[in-house]
């Protein structure tokens, strides 16, 4: 298919819009979950959705989407509250509580799933589509449900922005201000369950956690404030969703959900490597630049010291002497200093070899360095 045909394809449009909605919601809510150190919460909630899906199916007696998503939401919320209760009432740490809740609910879900499949006989209930997602099965009507859920949760975040921010950053302080911290945390958590429900058809319970965590982790690399982080996280989520949908439409029958997750993971990889300030490669390059600058500074001050010793600001320092003094090659550092006009080559009246003199600019720089320190005073 050509790109134009692909873009005008009805199914693709539906899938892409659905994936974008999912990406935006999970990006926004995932940012809060990750910052609350509850990356695993998405995992627990999505796995917990499975028994809810099965119970919804059993209750409706058919593959009724409303019942199934309702069941998933209820089970997810119940699992979230279980985790909160476990960490508050026992001395279990959150990761341990999440781990045990996750496996319990998922095991329960698998048991129910096999039961249903046996009951339904050969005419499969088609529930295992929820394990890994089945984007192609999404209908236009489903988009409406997803859209309403998305608007509701994003609206809540917009309205309660500063409360959510405070509860996420400093819950103790939030308590002293009289905020209902537990209730706000519960709302944040339940909304993650909503995001999971939105993503169930698309990505499935197994990979859904990645949609919660990946955009947020990637976004965190690029920013120093919460607002931009949430916006970037949503954008990465949407981008990954649409990218996954497009690739799936072009490739022969590759499943959309895993592609979306792969796209989000690629964003994480790029961000971890490249983001200014936090990226690994950026960090490495900056440290190298700093090491060089430091080397240059030390050479500069050494020449300055020699000049001072000889009472001659234009004293030519011999490069081989500097090499001996620093126990290694100063040539590169001197070249860089020369390139920016801090030193110049000079002839010495008696000895051979390269000699260096501080330019006026170099003298000023050396004095600055020696004056040193940028401590702070109130």
């Amino acid at each position, binding site marked *: 298919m050509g790109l134009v045909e692909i873009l005008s394809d009805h199914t693709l449009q539906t899938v892409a819009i659905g994936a974008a909605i999912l990406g935006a919601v999970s990006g926004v809510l995932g940012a809060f979950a990750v910052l609350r150190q509850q990356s695993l919460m998405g995992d627990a909630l999505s796995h917990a959705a499975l028994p809810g899906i099965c119970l919804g199916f059993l209750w409706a007696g058919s593959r009724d989407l409303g019942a199934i998503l309702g069941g998933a939401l209820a089970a997810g919320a119940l699992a979230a509250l279980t985790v909160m209760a476990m960490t508050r009432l026992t001395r279990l740490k959150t990761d341990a509580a999440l781990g045990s809740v996750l496996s319990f609910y998922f095991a329960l879900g698998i048991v129910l799933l096999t039961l249903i499949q046996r009951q339904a006989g050969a005419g499969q209930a088609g529930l295992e589509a929820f394990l890994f997602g089945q984007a192609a099965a999404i209908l236009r009507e489903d988009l409406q449900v997803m859209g309403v859920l998305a608007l509701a949760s994003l609206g809540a975040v917009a309205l309660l922005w500063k409360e959510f921010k405070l509860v996420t950053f400093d819950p103790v302080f939030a308590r002293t201000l*009289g905020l209902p911290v537990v209730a706000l945390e519960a709302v944040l958590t339940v909304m993650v369950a909503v995001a999971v429900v939105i993503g169930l058809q698309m990505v499935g319970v197994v990979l859904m956690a990645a949609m919660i965590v990946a955009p947020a982790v990637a976004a965190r690399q690029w920013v*120093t404030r919460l607002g931009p*982080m949430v916006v970037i996280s949503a954008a990465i989520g949407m981008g990954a969703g649409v990218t996954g949908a497009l690739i799936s439409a072009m490739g022969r029958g590759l499943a959309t959900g895993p592609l979306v997750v792969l796209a989000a993971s690629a964003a994480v990889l790029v961000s971890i490597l490249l983001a200014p300030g936090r990226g690994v490669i950026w960090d490495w390059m900056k440290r190298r630049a700093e090491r060089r600058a430091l080397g240059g500074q030390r050479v500069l001050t050494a020449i300055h010291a020699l000049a001072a010793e000889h009472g001659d600001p234009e004293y030519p320092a011999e490069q081989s002497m500097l090499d001996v003094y620093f126990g290694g090659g100063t040539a590169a550092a001197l070249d860089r200093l020369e390139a920016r006009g801090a030193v110049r080559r000079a002839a010495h009246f008696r000895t051979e070899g390269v000699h260096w003199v501080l330019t006026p600019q170099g003298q000023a720089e050396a004095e600055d360095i020696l004056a040193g320190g940028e401590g702070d005073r*109130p």
Partner: protein
Amino acid sequence: MFFRPRAEVQGRLHEPGLALHVEDLTVSYHARPVLWDIDLDVPPGVMAAIVGPNGAGKSTLIKAVLELVPKTAGHVRVFGAPYARARKRVAYVPQRSSVDWDFPTTALDVVMMGRYGHLGWLRRPGRETRAQAMAALGQVGMAAYADRQISQLSGGQQQRVFLARALVQEADLYLLDEPMAGVDATTERAIVKLLQGLRDRGRTVVVVHHDLQTVRRYYDWMVILNVRVIAQGPVAEVHTAENLRRAYGGQIALIDAAPEAPAGAGTM
């Protein structure tokens, strides 16, 4: 040994003019009492030090006032009202903030959070809040760091940001748990001046303080605590070698302790 100035404290019990009134307060962690039958009164407009050895329960006392830890017994009044109703008049700086320092937020952001209580639900902080926060950062000498991510501040600078957050709360009662820990001498003097300025404007400032050398210079009111209240009252009366020995036992050499006050006069 068991001297407790019940009678006199009882006399002031329901004086509504008190900034902080604590009565019969007992707090236990895992059934082990760490504060025992505390009766405490802090009049308004003083700058009070709470001193006592490590583990004396100073932080716990403040947390109990703020209802951050459950009380086993007793009650607290802030300006004559239960804490829940006086919340807006109280600001708190914890000893060690347990926040995630890598959180994507700047010093200015953190200080603005001090205004959230006054803004109330739904309202967003605007230009005015920003200006207030900048002014508070200036007061603690951190204006130049307003846009720094908080993980890129030194420990003392982080402490000052949290102090600034308390300042913008414009409270009447400040509860500060070792705000001077980890700040350099110059900054400590600046902070003390700042707090004394608050007191001079009629605010009440209660500070957990560790340096017994400076208590007399900085404060006008003093509470000595070690699970129980050992003594409380004006610094000149309370800061005695006898009282400090009772709180700290043999733990400290009482260099230049205050001249002995007449027995018992230190407590009220």
